[in-house]
């Protein structure tokens, strides 16, 4: 190591440390980028962007019972049961939110926008079984698609907010609603 090299080493160290310290000091004079979630979020600070793929919700009144979502889901977390017979009823619509990876493939497959993402992302519960979300309380008639209908200006999060609200409740075993079939057919459940 030559002597000039020796001096250059000292000079480089001093200069680069000096510059680095100027950079870090300049950041002391700036506003932090982080926010105090959840208690000090500024007004108008958009936490979740439009189009965020959060927890799924189903507007059962729009569901046609076509099972497209169930077939598309790569990991099979959607369970839709439709009763057989002349008059079809949707008797079960479950989504296992614990397994769902929010890929959004089901929402793209759905013809009526019945299944869609909300902006909800914080919904921790104390019992993992509560994360199986049941969207059907009583059998519903499938939606008849209208031709050239534009999707409703739906209010995403309507259903999920209820679920999030109820998460403190005790877990109760879910019973799929059975259907009274007018023409004497059987529900899936009765068959088993």
């Amino acid at each position, binding site marked *: 190591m030559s002597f000039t090299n020796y001096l250059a080493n000292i000079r480089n160290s001093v200069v680069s440390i*000096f510059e680095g310290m*100027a950079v870090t000091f300049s950041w002391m004079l700036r*506003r932090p980028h982080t926010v105090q979630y959840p208690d000090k979020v500024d007004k108008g600070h958009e936490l979740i962007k439009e189009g965020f793929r959060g927890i799924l919700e189903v507007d059962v009144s729009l569901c046609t019972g076509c099972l497209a979502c169930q077939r598309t889901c790569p990991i099979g977390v959607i369970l839709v049961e439709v009763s057989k017979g002349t008059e079809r009823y949707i008797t079960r619509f479950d989504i296992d939110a614990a397994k769902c990876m929010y890929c959004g493939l089901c929402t793209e497959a759905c013809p009526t926008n019945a299944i869609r993402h909300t902006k909800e992302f914080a919904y921790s519960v104390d019992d993992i079984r509560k994360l199986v979300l049941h969207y059907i309380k009583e059998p519903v008639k499938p939606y008849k698609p209208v031709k050239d209908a534009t999707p409703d200006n739906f209010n995403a999060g309507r259903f999920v907010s209820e679920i999030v609200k109820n998460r403190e409740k005790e877990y109760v075993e879910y019973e799929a609603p059975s259907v009274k079939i007018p023409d004497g057919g059987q529900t899936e459940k009765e068959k088993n």
Partner: protein
Amino acid sequence: MFEISSKILDYFGISSDFSVIVVVLVFFVYGLFALTFASLFAGITSWYERRIAGRMQSRIGPNRVGYQGFWQWLADGLKCWFKEDIIPKDTDSVLFRIAPYFVFTGVLSTFVVIPFSPTIVGSDMNVGLVYIIAITALVVAGILMAGWASNSKWTLLGGIRSAAQMISYEIPVALSLIVVIIPAGTLSLQKIIQMQGGAPYNWFIFHNPGTFAAFFIYFTSALAEGNRTPFDLPEAESELVAGYNTEYSGMRFLFFLFAEWMNLYVIGAIATAVFLGGWRIPGIAYEVQAASLWLQFVGFIIFLIKALLLVNVIIWLRWTLPRLRIDQLMIMCYKYLIPLSVIMILLSVFFTVIYYSLPFLSLAVRIVLFILSLIVAGYFGYRVYFNIKYFPDKTYLRWMI
């Protein structure tokens, strides 16, 4: 402390038969004061450092416990206190248990000679600086013990690294202090402070070019001796998990951290006392200051401000710089710092001798050096301004968020 004891004896008219008791009591009180001061300092710094680091990294930092998170340090301390003290199987359990106290004691013992004001000092030893260098060797022993007794390879590596590092860096620390001892002519910290003036250009750092460089050499090697970044190899978290304290938990772990943060103050205080004029107030003679209680208090505040400024710089360096490698650390010690400090000793001798015959040169050199450092500080301010202008983020001068 002896003067204070004798004053108390006189004041209450106690016969000298009881002087031993009074002296012991006074020392005990002073010891408690030093311990409280050091612990409070360590605790508050642990919070302060995280806040500063947060701002530098455009985060907020701890702000949940109390006003702006001020009581975070207490919460952390309590948490560590209540945690289970795990002593892993197959450790050398006696060494494992006592190692943290060695480290803690090693750092705390330096408070014996670190002055707070002209009379408030544990013991104004005439070999104060030597005492400091000697007593901090206890830290090495403690860390090596911790590293060995944990019976883990990572801790052992950390312990060996720190032993090598701290023993090596004691040399430049001592040599750079000698640079000041030459013009001062004494080893006692109080006498060294006494010999400096209150005004900045009368400080020993501006005494001659040798001491000016010695200040930086001392600062660097003290950082290395105290295991601070960029020299925190013994606890390099990305290499050695957590170095010598990997296996520790609970209160014993806290003692290591305590020692580390107390050491910040020790570094700052010694540099302040030796290079930056200590508790001297500009324009007030030593005798006047020593006689008045109020002026002593002002001196204490001045001392604290200077030391805390240096602590700030240490924290700031930590969050700016990467870490050296072990061989580079040794190269830096033996190839750069030691030869440079020897040169500075020679320079210092040269200037000290010259000043005897040419007193006006002394003032000229001091003022030139002072102005030079002002220019550097000004340039630094410009660079900060440049950085702020260069990046589109707005400035925001409120410290609390």
